[in-house]
């Protein structure tokens, strides 16, 4: 970075701590995480279940308030914001994809997407156009009037992605978006994430799936609520790529 003016990271967590109350005992879920996410990054957060991945994502999205630590969005401190302020922030800056879609069951696909757009202040007409464009993009134009119950798991995830993207958020947070999907749907969803990343969306992806994680260009490994490793994913050298799988797995004999 040669610029004299340091550009603030899009999102920065500093010493974030968050515990859950289970019965009468406090169980630490995130115990002191500092993380800096710059514009245009695609960060995967991996780790065993119970490592605090989802909690971290919820804290980053303002869905949970950190017990301690600071959170900065675009150079502005946000961890002390009131719930309603966070709600407004999420509308404009965040797109969130939850595990298993979490579509509103009473809403059609189109309504699920448009509601989010209208909530952010978009006019009904713009919302409709955006929705149409996104569904075309995701190959779901024919499902606009369907209810979530009529969709396959992969389709639901793509609708959830469309809903998260309809407001053209700076930051896309995805919590196990491939959690319940078969490998083909997983591949489709990951390809879409890569595509929107290439178009400039900053993505934080919480996943248990190494394939999903390897789509990102940075992998943060959590362990016991702490960051165990934070590494850039390297492009394998061209020469090695040609070698193929033999290099990875020794197929017997």
């Amino acid at each position: 970075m040669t610029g004299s003016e340091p550009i603030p990271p899009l999102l920065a967590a500093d010493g974030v701590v968050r515990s859950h109350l289970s019965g009468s005992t406090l169980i630490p879920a995130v115990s002191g995480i500092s993380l800096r996410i710059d514009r245009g990054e695609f960060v995967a957060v991996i780790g065993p279940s119970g490592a605090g991945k989802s909690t971290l994502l919820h804290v980053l999205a303002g869905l949970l308030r950190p017990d301690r630590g600071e959170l900065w969005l675009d150079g502005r401190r946000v961890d002390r914001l009131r719930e309603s302020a966070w709600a407004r922030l999420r509308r404009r800056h965040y797109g969130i994809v939850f595990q298993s879609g979490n579509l509103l069951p009473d809403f059609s696909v189109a309504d699920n997407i448009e509601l989010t757009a209208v909530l952010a202040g978009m006019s009904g007409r713009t919302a409709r156009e955006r929705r149409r464009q996104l569904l075309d993009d995701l190959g779901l134009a024919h499902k606009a009037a369907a209810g979530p119950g009529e969709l396959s798991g992969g389709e639901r995830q793509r609708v959830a992605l469309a809903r998260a993207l309809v407001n053209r958020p700076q930051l896309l947070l995805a919590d196990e978006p491939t959690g319940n999907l078969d490998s083909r749907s997983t591949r489709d969803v990951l390809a879409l994430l890569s595509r929107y990343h290439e178009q400039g969306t900053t993505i934080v992806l919480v996943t248990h799936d190494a394939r999903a994680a390897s789509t990102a260009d940075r992998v943060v490994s959590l362990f016991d609520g702490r960051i165990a490793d934070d590494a850039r994913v390297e492009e394998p050298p061209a020469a090695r790529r040609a070698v193929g799988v033999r290099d990875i797995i020794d197929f017997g004999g």
Partner: protein
Amino acid sequence: MPAILRWIRADLRSHRLHALLIVLATGGTAAALLLAGTLLGAAADPWQRQFHAAGSPHIRIDLRPSAPARGSADEPSAAVLAGEPGVLAVSPPQHTAETTLVGRRADGATTAGPPGRTTLVLRGDDPDAARPLLRSGTWLDPDDIHGIVLEQSAADAAWAHPGDHLTVLDARGGPVDLQVRGIADSPDQLPSQAAGYDLGWAPPATLDLVQPDRAAQGLTLGLRLAHPADAGYTAQRVVSVLGAERVSRITTWLDARAARQQDNRLAGLLLGLSGLAALLAAALAVAGAAGGRIRARTGDIALLKALGFTAGQVAWMFIAEQLLLAGTGVLLGAGGAAIAVHTVPALGGGTDALHGLVPGGTATTGAVVAAALLAVGAAAALPALRAARVAPVPPTDGTRPPVMTARPVRLGPLRQLPPALVFGLGSVLRRRSDLVGSALRLTVPVVAATLALSTWTTLDAVTRPDGGVTVPSVTARRTTPDQTPGDGWLANALAADAAVQGVYPGTEMQALAPGQSATLTLHAVGTTDAPYPYTVVEGRAIHATDEAVAGQGALDLLGARVGQWVRLTTGSTPRILHIVGRNLEPQHGGRVLSTGFDTLDRPGDPTHPDFWQLTLRPGQDPAEVQRDLPARAGLAGQTEIRLPTGPVTRPGALRASVVGLLLLLALIGLVDLLTTATAGFHERRRDLGLLRAIGLTPGQSALVLAVRGTAIALITVTVGSAVAIPLVRRLIDRQGELSGIGAGIARAPSTWTVLAMAAICATAAAALCALPVLRIPPPTPAPDGSGR
């Protein structure tokens, strides 16, 4: 906020049944409250309907006879009054003539002497003036100068029926024979007891017959006002314009209403109370329904908040949705009530509350609408605030977070029962707070229904001719002019009848308390040796002469308490009576002092009873006794029998209101049950899937929920009636006290009624809870995410 509207639209689209039920419940409540108002007007307050139907004037002015004002000279006063501000119309002046009623005899019989002489004012009939409402018989025939129509309260006081002959004294004191053609209600008129004279209508020629000097005839005029509320002011103006010496009496509609309403307040108060209870029940039903749905959908709410809905928006969303439903309901209800009132003639009398005919009518409608909306809004607000507090973290595995930790129950001996019963009871025991909420919500309509049913039984008891709150009795009276046969012989002949338990000589007179303008009735029946069995609810019965028991109305009027001595004047005779007890007194708004006949020992007091009050043996139908007793006792043509007159209510309309209220409460109960059923179904959907996976048939799993629903319904009815019956007794007694009859009138619904209510509730609950289960598909092994 467009996003909120969108959410409401989609939510309503996917919950049509629920929305429909809420609309129906609020609409029903609004309609019931409005119709209750109008029915109350019709049932408890027939005056309003009559006033409207008769086109009665708001102000009735009686003018004294005045020598100079002869013939057309009266016209100027009418013209002068027509010019007064606020006066819409002046009815044509009608002549009046004062006579003295000295005798009455039934058709064909000889004249019997009524107790004392009363003033009968005859009013000249004018086709252009508002006529009273004919109750029985026929209207006047202009050519029949001996025919008159008697005012209802005058006819009651004189025991007169159409066809009876009356003897009146004309201006010179000569007897004139008149025949009663009909009996009519005149809603602008004070009842004769309050007015101090009886009123009758006659052709103008009859007036000339009894008072040939036109100058000695009085005049009466009616005014209709643009603003009825200004009647008092206009009355003052009239007196100052016409001169105080010219006006003998001025009656406004407010006086007339006040004089006639006291008898009917009880019914009005009780039905109003039931209506309010229904409103409360409806509000709770709305709260419950909203709460149930919010609980069933915490996951969606969390998701909405994650998407960027603020807590305020979430709360507003639910409140606005409920208000929208309630608003639709109230509009439909008000519209339905208006249509019902216009199309069903029986309801037609009470349109005033809707039309604002009487001052405050529009305000009443507005108040009902506002109250309904407010109640629903407030009821929805609480669960909405709970929704607003839902954490914005949507559930990760697609299932709802557990609402509460379910503790395993020891079912112990229950294990011997069929499995469906065990699981059903187990689920009731395990989710106790859930059970308490459901039961509480359902309790209110049960309490309200108990109140409505108690209203029914109480009013039934009060208005039933065979007493109910008092000992069943009829009154017998001699129809012969002289004292033959003797009193003793007559009493013995009556007492000999198998239907009669006791015979008590009696008389009745009007009494005035010093410093009071209102009169009360002194009812002297029975003797110190054989006192009449009054229903004494406070103090004791009469043991000696000069002791009396009083109705609540009399105590209120005299400002006295049981145990005090009171002074009264009957005619010109002063009396001092010791009030030793309070009895239930359904007549005359309770303004009755009852004492023994032998207390009347002052000079001028009657020596012979005017009537005998007969108490009947249990199971005797007073109407039958009235019809058959004279012939059976060999007294045909010598006595007549009358049924006691209770508060003048219209049981038909009252019953219609109670039935309507019960239907409404049933609808509200249905909404509550449906809420309970859906909540139970959603919460146990997973468990039931598991139960079915381990081999419960669909029928058995339906039974599991049916058992739960039945248990809740039974608990509700038990708790509800246990709470309601004492509460309702107190409420009704309080109303009884206000109405003058006095505390102690409350009658709880019969055990069978309560049992029937329990059975209906339990059946409905079982059916509603079981039905959705039959529709779940067989259990699928892998619950996939959003398939909830």
